């Protein structure tokens, strides 16, 4: 193979910017991220590109290639014609930092608002028992590499800045579903999803599912089942009565777990050594000190 491709790459920052034309060599078997690297090495040493593993596992190199949100490392050049002009732009829903890099802190803020896994009381480490079929539902969602393409493409926030406050986006609604379906999580998460994270904004257009590089069925397997559970609960008269009587979620009062993890070393592994013994077991030579 080996040819010169025509690229338009968005260059700029928060102040503004525009597409810049490049002609760049393409070799056999390359992906768009390879071309961005070649541009950096030969024509645009300061061009900002966020990437990491280059194997579709870390979810860093999200961009919009010919207007389609993609991972650049998973977009093969062979899917384009040799005379096709290829545009590469930063993902649109998040503020640009520079060139192809955007500020995705929105996602980290939302992640922090999802209440953490609530482990069952009185089950010691090592005594957790779950069946494979039960963990698989949540495991599907834990395949997520946090590329944020679903967050980027979701029309609730893509062109509606005002929805970013009440709506956590598919990635974090899916996280709530994941915890809700975790066999041992003891927290009720239905109200969380609806009241605190904006599940109601989602009108199941499946854009998130289509764009997911991990092929997670976000809409069908996470969002729709969550909506159904919320509805079941909302219209259940016993739950309604219960909520009137008991304040919601005593669980939230779980004290700050200041427990030292090494204080509870878990089941005996035949180790003669207490795990929390930090310090020398016996005097040793200076060579390894």
């Amino acid at each position, binding site marked *: 193979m080996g040819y010169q491709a025509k690229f338009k790459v968005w260059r700029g920052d928060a102040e503004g910017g525009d597409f810049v034309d490049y002609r760049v060599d393409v070799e056999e*078997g390359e992906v768009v991220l390879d071309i961005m690297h070649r541009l950096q090495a030969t024509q645009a040493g300061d061009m900002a590109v966020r990437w990491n593993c280059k194997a579709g596992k870390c979810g860093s190199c999200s961009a919009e290639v010919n207007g389609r949100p993609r991972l650049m490392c998973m977009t093969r050049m062979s899917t384009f014609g040799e005379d096709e002009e290829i545009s590469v732009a930063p993902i649109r829903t998040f503020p640009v930092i520079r060139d192809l890099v955007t500020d995705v802190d929105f996602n980290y803020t939302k992640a922090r608002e999802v209440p953490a896994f609530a482990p069952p009381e009185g089950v010691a*480490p090592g005594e*957790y028992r779950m069946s494979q079929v039960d963990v698989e539902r949540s495991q599907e969602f834990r395949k997520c590499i946090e590329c944020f393409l679903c967050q980027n493409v979701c029309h609730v926030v893509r062109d509606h800045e005002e929805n970013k406050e009440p709506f956590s986006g598919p990635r974090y609604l899916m996280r709530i579903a994941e915890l809700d379906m975790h066999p041992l999580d003891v927290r009720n998460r239905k109200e969380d999803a609806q009241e605190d994270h904006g599940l109601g904004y989602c009108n199941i257009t499946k854009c998130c599912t289509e764009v997911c590089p991990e092929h997670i069925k976000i809409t069908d397997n996470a969002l729709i089942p969550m909506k159904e559970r919320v509805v079941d609960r909302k219209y259940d008269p016993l739950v309604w009565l219960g909520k009137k009587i008991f304040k919601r979620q005593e669980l939230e009062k779980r004290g700050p777990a200041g427990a030292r993890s090494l204080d509870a070393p878990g089941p005996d592994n035949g180790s003669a050594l207490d795990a929390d013994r930090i*310090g020398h077991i016996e005097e040793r030579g200076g060579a390894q000190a």
Partner: protein
Amino acid sequence: MTDPGTTTAFEASEAEATGDTAVTHHTYDVVVIGAGGAGLRAAIEARLRGKRVAIICKSLFGKAHTVMAEGGIAASMGNANPRDNWEVHFRDTMRGGKFLNNWRMAELHAKEAPQRVWELETYGALFDRTPDGKISQRNFGGHNFPRLAHVGDRTGLELIRTLQQKIVSLQQEDFARSGDYESDLAVFHEYTITELLKDGDRIAGAFGYRRPTGELVCFHAAAVVLATGGVGKSFKVTSNSWEYTGDGHALAMRAGAKLLNMEFVQFHPTGMVWPPSVKGILVTESVRGDGGVLKNSEGERFMFNYIPEVFREQYATSEDEGDRWYTDADNNRRPPELLPRDEVARAINNEVKEGRGSPAGGVYLDVSSRMSAAEITKRLPSMYHQFKELADVDITAGPMEVGPTCHYVMGGVEVDPDTAASAVPGLFAAGEVAGGMHGSNRLGGNSLSDLLVFGCRAGAGAAAYLDGLGDTVPTVSDESVTAAREDVLRPIQNSGGENAYTVHQELQQTMNDLVGIIRKADEMELALKKLHELADRIPRVAVDGRRAYNPGWHLALDLRNMLMVSECIAMAALERQESRGGHTRDDYPTMDENWRRELLVCSLRDGEVTLEHQGQPAMRSDLFDLFEMDELKKYYTGDELGGHRSDAPRGTERGTEDAGDEAERSSTSVETGGDPGGELTGGGA
């Protein structure tokens, strides 16, 4: 993420004079550099022990290289085979490292790994399960029993996400108490640390920059935990990401710590070889653990020809026996595809060299003829996708082409096994950046467990160190900040100099070609000459543009770290005149038991990398007794074998505890004649 930053008098006075080169200051108890498995586990431990902790990482939070780990976490929980326990795991680890391991680290690792894994479940991790609901464990190279806790072939992602979510959970507790998510545990992502700052001998802080803006930052902290991972970006064909530039190794050296075992670099036997742009990307060992076999261009399962003498009794000698092992491991020996990684990598290298390779210069890894398509996509889903989407190859329909790729550095910062403390007070290291644990070669699955066990110990060690400081807290001097700032700004101020990308490519090519999987003295001498030339060019690297998210500037600053670790690797590899684990000499092709007790240690003296010999302390007698004499004889010299339990009468003491004196005496520099196995290097017993 928010900045709990403080402005000091220093910043206020400097800011006017220097404009945008002002420095933002932050103060914490513990600064953890690196947000992979080791860094996050260290941060969690330090925070649980009441310390205010900052986590600093070059990538976004949750993108660390740990996500690339596929196979699993080695821990002798005994869920798949109840005969497994820490002693068996310890033995496997020492064998895998060819007995060069720091035995105390290997002991702690084997004993504590199960607890660290079980703990992850209390953070919300969801491992694959056994039929009775326990954590499932899979086979892996060098492990005598199915031992790797796993989640399909994305175990590293599960580990990172679990620890990331535990950090968030701790932040939620802090928020409930203080009203600020980051009051006690803050993540500074997309920051790079360029220098450790000291007050006298002790750590006082760390200096660096914020990648998106180029803002200069100084962290004031009496304890720093290095968890920066490895050095693979010094090689051209590597499974490592851009972050693996040896930062922690170089930071530690410049701060006065020592690196050991740097000659031992693991080349993973199965990296992708086609297409060229993905050359080096990992193909998980679980493909072989789950039944995949290696074949050459003649269709032969060639690994049967490469079982080394030391492993002769543990591996199957016929294809039938090897195949039976997958279903009846108790009555059959494992197939040689599951030999330790160094053995398999050398075998593939040799097959290709002798003309039995695949068209793209690898060999065939075949799983399609041994498993149904449905089973492959179930057990190896991310491998299926990786080949489908990166190479347009369907692994359920035909074999993969694979070859060795630079994967892991066994060498690293010399630490105290129990506390992860380096020789520099206040400086700790855990995970890949620390050395010793894996000896000359790491077993698959022992990396993730290493991160957890020693990450935890480093966090605890740092907290204990701070508790012992009392009122004598070190402070950062203005001079050290000024010097660090000058180094960082140099590439921007240089003009018309070298191109960072070109220099990097030359460095990678040099290491790949001359200090790669098979090494020769004359090639390594040439490599050192080339590295010295690069050392002159790197200070002249100039970059275009501003500091805001400028990858050219970032690379220019990483280059000096890559150069320093490359020098360490080349010097140590030239010095070690034997082949062992991740160090193969064409001119010294066999293992030499006299070299077993020799450690090669690098440090900086007047800015130059210096190499010294150091004795390996003798193994504690109860651990020594875990091995059979027949096996020990393959690795040890005769005079080291006294005192083994096989020597009657029992109760005679081995001279383990003289090791310190011995080692000190043997710590003699290369120039004055480090004679392997000579009188200077007794090494105990």
